[in-house]
């Protein structure tokens, strides 16, 4: 593993991880974002 390989791997892996962590944090911390989009009563089971 060369220094260049270490640098690329760390930047790529940490960049993707940071983006995912930020997105998940944003989704979970936005007050309305974890609410149910629609209640189960909205769903019409057509074949039942």
């Amino acid at each position, binding site marked *: 593993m060369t220094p*260049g390989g270490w*640098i690329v791997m760390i930047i*790529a892996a940490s960049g993707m991880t940071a983006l995912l962590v930020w997105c*998940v944090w*944003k*989704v979970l911390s*936005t007050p309305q974002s974890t609410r149910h*989009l*629609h209640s189960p009563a909205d769903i019409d089971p057509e074949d039942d």
Partner: protein
Amino acid sequence: MSQPKESWNSRIGVILAVMGSAVGLGNFLRFPGQAAQNGGGLFMIPYLVAFVIVGIPLAWSEWALGRYGGSMGYNSAPGIFQGVFRNRNGAYVGMLGTVMPLLIYTYYVIIEALCLYYAWNYLNGVLPALGGDIGEVGGFFGASLGAGDHGALFTSEQAPMLGFIFFCFFLNFVLIYRGISQGIEKFCIYAMPLLVLCAFIVLGRVLTLPPNPAHPEQNILAGLGYMWNPVQEEGKTLLSSLAEPEIWLAATGQIFFSLSLGFGLILTYASYLKKDDDVCLSSLTSAAGNGFCEVVLGGMIAIPAAFIFLGPALLSENISTFGLGFTALPNVFNQMPAGSFFGFLFFFLLFLAAVTSSLSMLQPSIALLEEGLGLTRKPAVAILGFITFTGTFFITFFSKDVLALDTIDFWMANFFIFIFATVQTIVFGWVIGPEQGYTALSAGAEISVPRWIMTVMIRYISPLYLLVVFAFWCKSALPERWDSIVNPPKGEPPVVLLSIGFIVMVLVFFSFVIAGANQRWDSDEPRSAEDPS
């Protein structure tokens, strides 16, 4: 027609469903193979550039276009395009958005079954018994797909594999029949965390592997280096290697396929959102989750493990998606301590990734049959079941050299996907237009999207980039394909022509469905997108 009756049950559910649709074999097998073949770490530069300038803008435009269509009461690509164009011919433009995923499903379910078949064979000891002979493992792989002869899967020796194909086919239809929230969403909420957990366990095993006793230089650091070290082409510098168009083509293609862009899947999924539901943060989260599975998990499992046990020479011969996944890696698991358990876990995670992807391929057609012909879910699922069963049977029977599978894969997942992705971008950037498009994108947004993403990236850069990549791809890939059509092997059934004939038949069938749908939509009251502001 009434507003869509089905919808997502939770925000996390829709994100995991789209992420599940995107995370598949491409993340764990195709990505590492592409990176290792295209300069290792050097590949990550065009990869990350393509992620930013093609991946995220295209994902945003597909989500926004889908929700825009959903606000008009449409859930299928033909319906959405008909609504956007306000013209019945628009529905035909969107036809590929239902036909492509459906046809991809017909062979993807076989690959899905293969993953489960491998997992099963690790549990019952068949695969571990093959040991470290890569020829034996390769033979097992070929026999599992019936690559030796047409109809080979219908012999008693391969009956178990055929059984797994039936099981996977049936499983998908059971889940899809249960609907968006009770079937797809519920499955993805459990399957995605389980998939990531399995991947972390396998990753932990790979990163703690001891060096190969016979070749101590084949250790984990050297394996990571094979994957991540920037490598220039012979006689070139790193910079001039980076200037080669091939590396940019490979990276863009990987981003494109990996994020499930251009299939019409996201259009349908996003159409079940409401007009004030966020699309910007949700799509970015799905893309980031897919990128994490690809770079962090996919980039550190397959290649380093294969390097330790196979060495660079044998690895480079088996670096294609199938070669790496179904020949090289089983060979690796057969040689490592507790390999049966980790082999089972790896192929089970591939199976989960495949199911979450294949589920998404059926919903666009179901949506068209329901909203276009006014069918309830039961007959819509039955019609779709008949068409896909015919296709899967055809591919399973004409299995010699995997030719039928390869032909349908080439035209659907390589050729038409570029066309439909470009059409989608042009429709969003030009037909809907920058002002209305930006309003549609930013309505309910929980993160701020700069206006230039719409006015510059989605309108100009993304379609231009796609067209250039498509032109280069056509130049390199089409001549060989054309040759396989006009010069079929003598004394063999014309499998390539039959496969193309099957594609045409499905296109004709859906043309009739759309004609019927157009009549139905014409008789409805005219509708326009709800003001998303």
